[in-house]
């Protein structure tokens, strides 16, 4: 015999042997009968194997298809309900939601900081306001003036503010990688600085800059620009396109910030300008010669009445006030 079978395990997995047990293949039946005749000592083993192969025949039951379909629907319903509930507590979803909302909040903050509306400070007649800028610089805004800036850009690479009227700037130096410029935009040109103190007056189509300390560059239109040294006053008007420069006492031009008016050979004409610009008064002078009268000195400018009294004394003129109109005689 070609086969030497020794274990139960071999027999129960032998398809030919299974066929013999189940009497399903005549050739196999014959083969195994011969084999058993030749190997009678294997008969008990073959009987044991046959016992396992034959086994027990059971009547197998099949559930009706409708029952299986019904239970499938139930399972699907439970899964759907579970997934709805799970949605609330699913950590992955929660994480996504959290990061998405964080992104959104970040985007809103960024958007707000970049597209933040310009901040605007305006002073009334006779009012002086001190404004601390986000970069640490200080601006004293004279009466009847407006300072506008974007807080976000003040913290970036170029600091820019827009001025209408008069203001005294105390710009602090700022270094990121390179010194950060501070630019004051006026109707008639811009003042470019790094860190310094200066006065800017931009009224009646004319901008005048008086430098107290440091160094500034005044840029008028069309490449007209000039560097200012302390004590320099530069004036420029769009109409005449003339850039004039002269030496002045800087304190005279910025004394207003301490609620004082300092005069150094100042004419009444200039004073009336101040009264009109800063206090909103309308000055009426019958005697035009008076306008050329000049004075030197200092008067308190906190109170209009006291100021007018002082003017009256200094110029030796009579001052009458009716509402917002002042008569000098």
């Amino acid at each position, binding site marked *: 015999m070609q086969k030497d079978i020794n274990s139960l395990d071999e027999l129960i997995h032998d398809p030919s042997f299974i066929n013999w047990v189940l009497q399903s293949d005549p050739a196999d039946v014959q083969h195994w009968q011969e084999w058993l005749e030749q190997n009678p000592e294997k008969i008990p083993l073959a009987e044991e194997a046959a*016992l396992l192969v034959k*086994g027990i025949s059971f009547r197998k039951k099949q559930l009706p298809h409708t029952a299986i379909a019904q239970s*499938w629907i139930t399972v699907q319903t*439970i899964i759907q309900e579970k997934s709805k509930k799970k949605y609330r507590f699913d950590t992955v979803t929660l994480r996504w939601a959290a990061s998405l909302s964080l992104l959104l909040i970040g985007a809103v903050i960024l958007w707000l900081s970049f597209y933040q509306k310009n901040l605007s400070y305006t002073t009334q007649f006779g009012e002086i306001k001190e404004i601390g800028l986000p970069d640490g610089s200080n601006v004293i805004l004279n009466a009847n003036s407006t300072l506008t800036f974007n807080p976000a850009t003040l913290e970036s690479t170029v600091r820019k503010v827009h001025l209408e009227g008069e203001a005294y700037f105390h710009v602090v130096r700022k270094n990121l990688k390179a010194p950060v410029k501070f630019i004051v935009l006026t109707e008639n040109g811009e003042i470019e600085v790094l860190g310094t103190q200066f006065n800017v007056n931009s009224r009646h189509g004319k901008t005048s800059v008086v430098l107290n300390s440091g160094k500034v560059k005044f840029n008028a239109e069309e490449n007209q620009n000039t560097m200012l040294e302390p004590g320099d006053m530069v004036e420029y008007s769009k109409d005449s396109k003339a850039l004039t420069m002269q030496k002045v006492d800087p304190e005279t031009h910025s004394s207003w910030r301490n609620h004082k008016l300092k005069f150094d050979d100042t004419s009444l004409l200039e004073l009336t300008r101040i009264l009109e610009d800063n206090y909103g008064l309308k000055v009426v002078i019958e005697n035009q010669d008076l306008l050329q009268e000049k004075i030197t000195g200092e008067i308190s400018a906190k109170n209009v009445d006291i100021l007018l009294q002082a003017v009256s004394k200094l110029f030796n003129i009579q001052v009458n006030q009716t509402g917002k109109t002042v008569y000098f005689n």
Partner: protein
Amino acid sequence: MATLPCDINLWKAFKKGDQNAFHTIYLQHYNSLYHYSLKVTQSKVVTEDCLQNLFVNLWSNRKNLSDVSCIKPYLFKALRRDLKRISYSAETTKNKEILLSHLATGPTFSQEDMVVEDETKQYVKEQMTETLNRLPNRQREVIYLKYYEDLSYKEIAQIMGIHYQSVINLLFKAMTQLKKKENLQKLITLFNIIFILVVDCFLIFA
């Protein structure tokens, strides 16, 4: 019942969330799992509940499941574990509705399951059922999985968490027991016939 092809691709598709694959697995195995559970729990309600949980959990945890080359033994193993758990929880919660005696004791056979050559011999069925149900739990389980479900020895070993050789040993023990009983029964029948013949002879000659 023909053994179903062990389809690793079907399982992979299911794991990826393929509803059709899930439905196919369900249709292929629901019947087998149902009857196994029914044999163990003897309760249709518990069985339906148990299978619902099995498939719902299967779907919810599909991403965490390992790759399975043969689905049927895998499902049987999972079901077997669930049935054990139910029996424990039934013990702890004292749930009287679940017949504790039937739980975790392996399958219980009924006369309807039996096929005998001569269907008129009801008593043969009765005796076979009785003998089967008197076998130890594990032997009954092996018999069920082997001859009712046509699972291979290896698959049974996997399901029951025992060695391959243990499966064969258990089955062999069970079958020899049954054979003994059967032979004994035959012997008794033979004695009965002889007895009747003897009595008849005696009556005739007397």
